[in-house]
């Protein structure tokens, strides 16, 4: 009932093969690093899409939860904890703080939720910059250890010193995230999220508790954002308040919107393509944000469904053009 046509599966398989082979034809270490970061941003962006795109709640604290994960892993691994223990803990802390923020603020609607979450993001950013004993203040935390090696019986161990290993680590977590989100979204569980976005009073009237449902989406999204932040801190080796700032949130938001809101592939495309486009546009310097700001306005006015949504519309038009009768029938019955 939720299956996709065959040619989509083939497309995804090809993309997966391309992703697995990517380390063999990536031109240089700098680009490689950007690709790895894109994957981590894609994890955060997909989870932001869960709360904003699918559940329809404008959470503007996603950067903050990414930051909580990053600082969490940084502080815990520097204190000697294994990365593999610190990462789930940091994600849980992120989800837990998310619940603490969500419980009061998800009772509010629309504007209010967006503003409360934005304010929380700013508070966290200020705290990260000033709580020097814990966060290192504006300089942040340096020398965060890489993920510790995973021993494999009889074969040695997997270490994460090489970029290639880090790449596969990021890819694994991205695939895991997409797998989980796909399962959650394309089921009756995910339908309840979309019911919140689409018609909350009706969902309430058919026995779905709006508050619990929204809180669940928010907590899941923040768990994943914290996880992405944790991996980010460990691979980069440093974290500063900018990783937790509202600018981070805005970046994720740009990826979500330009890629295509409420589509899983859109988030990945947005998070992957835009940082690379940004790099290619490096020569423009400060003009880049000028272009992106204007682009964001234009897209939201003329193509509110983003890149993937645009493609879908195009596809529908092609289908309609091929089978003119069927669509006419639908129009007549209206």
């Amino acid at each position, binding site marked *: 009932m939720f299956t996709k046509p065959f040619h989509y599966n083939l497309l995804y398989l090809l993309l997966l093969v391309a992703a697995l082979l990517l380390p063999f034809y990536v031109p240089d270490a700098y680009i490689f690093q950007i690709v790895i970061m894109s994957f981590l941003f894609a994890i955060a962006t997909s989870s932001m899409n869960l709360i904003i795109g699918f559940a329809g709640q404008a959470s503007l604290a996603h950067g903050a939860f990414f930051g909580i994960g990053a600082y969490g892993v940084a502080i815990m691994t520097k204190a000697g904890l294994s990365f593999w223990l610190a990462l789930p803990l940091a994600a849980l802390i992120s989800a837990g703080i998310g619940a603490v923020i969500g419980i009061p603020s998800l009772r509010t609607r629309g504007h209010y939720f967006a503003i409360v979450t934005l304010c929380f993001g700013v508070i966290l950013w200020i705290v990260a910059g000033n709580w020097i004993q814990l966060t290192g203040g504006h300089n942040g935390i340096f020398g965060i250890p890489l993920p510790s090696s995973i021993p494999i019986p009889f074969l040695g161990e997997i270490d994460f010193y090489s970029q290639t290993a880090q790449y596969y680590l990021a890819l694994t977590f991205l695939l895991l995230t997409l797998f989980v989100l796909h*399962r959650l979204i394309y089921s*009756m569980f995910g*339908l309840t999220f979309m*019911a919140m976005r689409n018609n909350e009073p009706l969902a309430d*009237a*058919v026995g779905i508790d709006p508050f619990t449902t929204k809180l669940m989406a928010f907590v899941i999204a923040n768990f994943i954002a914290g996880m992405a932040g944790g991996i980010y801190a460990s691979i980069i080796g440093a974290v500063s308040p900018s990783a937790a700032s509202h600018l981070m949130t805005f970046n994720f938001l740009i990826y979500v919107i330009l890629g295509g809101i409420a589509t899983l592939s859109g988030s990945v495309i947005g998070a992957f393509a835009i940082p690379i486009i940004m790099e290619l546009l490096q020569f423009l310097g400060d003009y880049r944000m000028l272009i992106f700001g204007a682009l964001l306005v234009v897209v939201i006015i003329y193509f509110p469904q983003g890149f993937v949504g645009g493609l879908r519309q195009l596809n529908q038009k092609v289908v309609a053009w091929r089978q003119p009768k069927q669509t006419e029938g639908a129009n007549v019955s209206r």
Partner: protein
Amino acid sequence: MFLVKSLTKHFDGIIAVQDVTFTINQGEILAIIGPNGAGKSTVFNLMTGTITPTSGMVFMEKVRISGLPPNKVAVKGIARTFQTTSLFDQLRVIDNLLIGYKYRTRIGFWNTLLHTPAWKRYQTEAFMRAMEMLEFLGLADKAEYFIPALSQEEQKRLAIGIAMVSKPRILLLDEPTGGLIQEETDRITRLIERIRDQGTTVCIIEHKMQMIMGLADRIVVLNYGKKIAEGTPDEIKSNQAVIEAYLGGEVHV
């Protein structure tokens, strides 16, 4: 089966509903009628927890439901539709019905994540029930349609379907034929009769007197937020208070 007792609601000092009492019996169709602004929809909203009463209580099988939020009322087997057709219009027809059935399942986070046998069972059960409902509504061939591709009558049918898919004990319909022409109204009326025949109790708000007189077993008449009459269609037709109330407003009787 369903008891509304001394229900009163004030909005900023305006009395919208005052001391309304009536019961709904198992298996009947009870209609609530009255001129515009008589407080019919407010009574519905009070019965389903959308708004909380200033005083008075609502009971379902001797269990008090007033004061509960709408979703807690719904899981007690009380389903409703809204005056303006309310659907999940960004989703497909089948998805609308699946959401309507959701609370009957135990599909939660872990079940869904792990695709447990329970998840599969519930997902199949919901799907079967949704298809059955589509059949019942006469929309079986439109499961995959998006809502804007449906006609107005089909949308109204679907709205009833979303309420009925979870097999409620009682169905509250708020003007289910508003804005429809006679022919379409007749078809919806037959649908409501079939729902009653299946054993679901129905409470309906309507303006169309002719339709109500033929459909309802009993009628409660509201005017200015008060109950002015209650009885069978024949009793209501000859009730002096009702005739007076309607002569001032609409002249459908």
